[in-house]
């Protein structure tokens, strides 16, 4: 059945419009219409392997790149965080996460987790980072922060897209971001085949699969069955070197069915982005609406800190041993300080700050970087102490109703 494309069959399962969201699906679609397709004739260039094979892939990558450090998701006090890994097997593989508005637990039954509370932003733009060290005589003391090589291992497509969004704002402008972004030598992505309850990546075209901007991507079909694909010549070289087998028809079929299911599950969770944007423009000055949807918000800024695309920072001077260290620190737009100036406050009322969070993601990012600034990871929903659900706000906007 090699010549018959499973994807062709799958087109009845998957709606064309939804597929077009993923980029990957474009290829899928062309396959079913053109009938001859390099991707599908070759079983979509998918390879199959075990978790151990992932270890081999990472090892080969490390050998090829020289001295590199691994960064990815790992356990941290009953949660999963993004940070430096000692080895690839720190990726949690024997637990699942349960995420709901304002709720996160690790469950020992299951083997898929969605994502961490901290995102690659924690590496690219650390919560506290040195900007400058100044002497009392106003001389600049140079910081000797050494350059390093980094591999991102197993980041999710939503977080990968968040990096592109941050690039649009910060790359080439923020010294700390630019330096750290340049230090990333390779990116391995883990695609999500079963979305969590707070996820809606496919609705904002940020997942669950990835089509570009990575070296190697894998998805966990079953517990110890992974499908791999490459996204760069480096990735291709490594996969071949690792001796991975071409995926069989059954793997390809299962993979695309799971992707289609994930997409159809998530797409209905928020309204269409174009409709949202139209409604946001109309409701921009509707104070009572914004007061209503933000009525459960306490302005803690958790959503900002877990958001993979929030980038606002404050600069503080910390004086130590005769030097003033200028430190950049995350500043959430939901917190009271945002907009506060010595002579007054530009966003004194909480609803204006909550509104900015929503408007920025859906209306302002498109004007600033050419794409929606929300990647649908759902972190802001999961980690909100009050369980405020961004999706509720978005859906209310379009329905025009008030709860």
């Amino acid at each position: 059945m090699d010549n018959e494309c499973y994807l062709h069959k799958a087109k009845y399962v998957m709606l064309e419009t939804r597929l077009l969201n993923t980029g990957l699906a474009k290829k899928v679609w062309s396959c079913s219409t053109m009938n001859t397709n390099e991707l599908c004739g070759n079983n979509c260039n998918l390879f199959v392997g075990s978790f151990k094979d992932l270890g081999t892939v990472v090892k080969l990558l490390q050998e090829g790149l020289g001295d590199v450090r691994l960064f990815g998701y790992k356990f941290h006090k009953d949660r999963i965080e993004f940070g430096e890994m000692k080895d690839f097997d720190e990726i949690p593989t024997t637990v699942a996460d349960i995420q709901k508005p304002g709720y996160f637990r690790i469950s020992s039954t299951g083997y898929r987790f969605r994502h961490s509370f901290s995102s690659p932003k924690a590496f690219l733009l650390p919560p506290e980072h040195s900007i400058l060290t100044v002497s009392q005589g106003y001389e600049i003391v140079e910081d000797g922060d050494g350059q390093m090589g980094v591999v991102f291992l197993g980041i999710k497509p939503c977080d990968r897209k968040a990096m592109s969004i941050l690039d649009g704002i910060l790359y080439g402008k923020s010294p700390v971001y630019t330096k750290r972004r340049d230090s990333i030598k390779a990116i391995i992505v883990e695609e999500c085949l079963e979305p969590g309850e707070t996820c809606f990546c496919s609705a904002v075209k940020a997942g669950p699969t990835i089509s570009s901007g990575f070296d190697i991507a894998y998805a966990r079909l079953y517990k110890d069955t992974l499908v791999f694909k490459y996204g760069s010549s480096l990735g291709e070289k490594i996969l071949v070197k690792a001796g991975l087998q071409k995926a069989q028809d059954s793997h390809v079929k299962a993979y695309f069915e799971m992707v289609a299911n994930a997409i159809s599950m998530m797409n209905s969770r928020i309204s269409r982005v174009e409709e949202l944007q139209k409604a946001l423009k109309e409701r921009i000055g509707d104070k009572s609406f914004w007061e209503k949807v933000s009525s459960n918000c306490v302005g803690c800024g958790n959503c900002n800190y877990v958001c993979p695309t929030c980038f606002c920072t404050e600069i503080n001077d910390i004086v130590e041993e005769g030097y003033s260290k200028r430190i950049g620190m995350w500043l959430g737009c939901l917190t009271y300080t945002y907009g506060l100036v010595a002579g007054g406050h530009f966003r004194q009322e909480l609803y204006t700050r909550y509104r900015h969070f929503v408007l920025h993601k859906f209306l302002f990012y498109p004007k600033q970087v050419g794409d929606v600034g929300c990647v649908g990871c759902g972190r802001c929903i999961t980690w909100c102490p009050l369980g405020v659900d961004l999706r509720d706000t978005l859906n209310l906007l379009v329905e025009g109703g008030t709860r």
Partner: protein
Amino acid sequence: MKVELQKGNYTANPFVFRKAVVVNKVEEAPGIYTYFLKFDGEFKILPGQFNMLYVYGLGEVPISLSNLPIFRNGYTLLEHTVRVMGAVTKAITLGLGIGSFIGIRGPYGNGWPLKDAEGRDITIVGGGIGIAPLRPIIKYVELEREKFGRMNILLGARTPRDMPYKYELDKYGAILNTKLLLSSDTPADGWVHHVGFVTDLINNIDVNIKNSVVFVCGPEVMMRVAVKKLLGRGFRKEDIYLSLERRMRCGIGVCGTCQFGHYFVCRDGPVFRYSDIEDYLWVEGI
């Protein structure tokens, strides 16, 4: 003297500042001081652009250029007018005297569109400390008088004492083809000018409305009133320019704290054409 306006660039690490020396300090009004800052090297900056001024151990504040820059004998001399508001401005005004060091980096922002204003009438509307970023325009028009049409200057303050640059206001009025209108919010002995808001004076503007530009700076409430009145008098949305302020930390569009709608005030502003911001200006807290 002919002035050449050129937009400058910042250095590779944008947070590195220059070390400047305070060479003069003038008290303009209660709590308002003009600092004359001198440092080595050439520095290009346009009227309407601003610099970040740094005080050791405390932090930075964005302050507009308040006079045309001077560059000679290998050094630059800039004027910045500062009003005491928070920690840093207080540290500047109370702590820094002649001979003190201060950090300065910039220039940031876009500046007033003076090239586009050539051949047209100019109206300036300034309130309080908002007069500071408008002052270099007046100085520039004075030097390059033939390039511009009529000029109307409308300046207001809470009381006559609060008006900055009192000592040279007469000179503004004496510029060829220029009308100077002053106002004070509260009456005072010897005040012969308008009592009320500076925006009241918009009724008395005497320019060719169809061929003019308006530059406005002051408290945001005042600017909104000004826009309404200017539109009422028939000025076009595209001809009205406002200089806005926001919380600002970096000056280069990376700290995100100066966002105004989808604009970064530090990079896309601080000077905005009214037609570009009309969706935002009337929305509280946007």
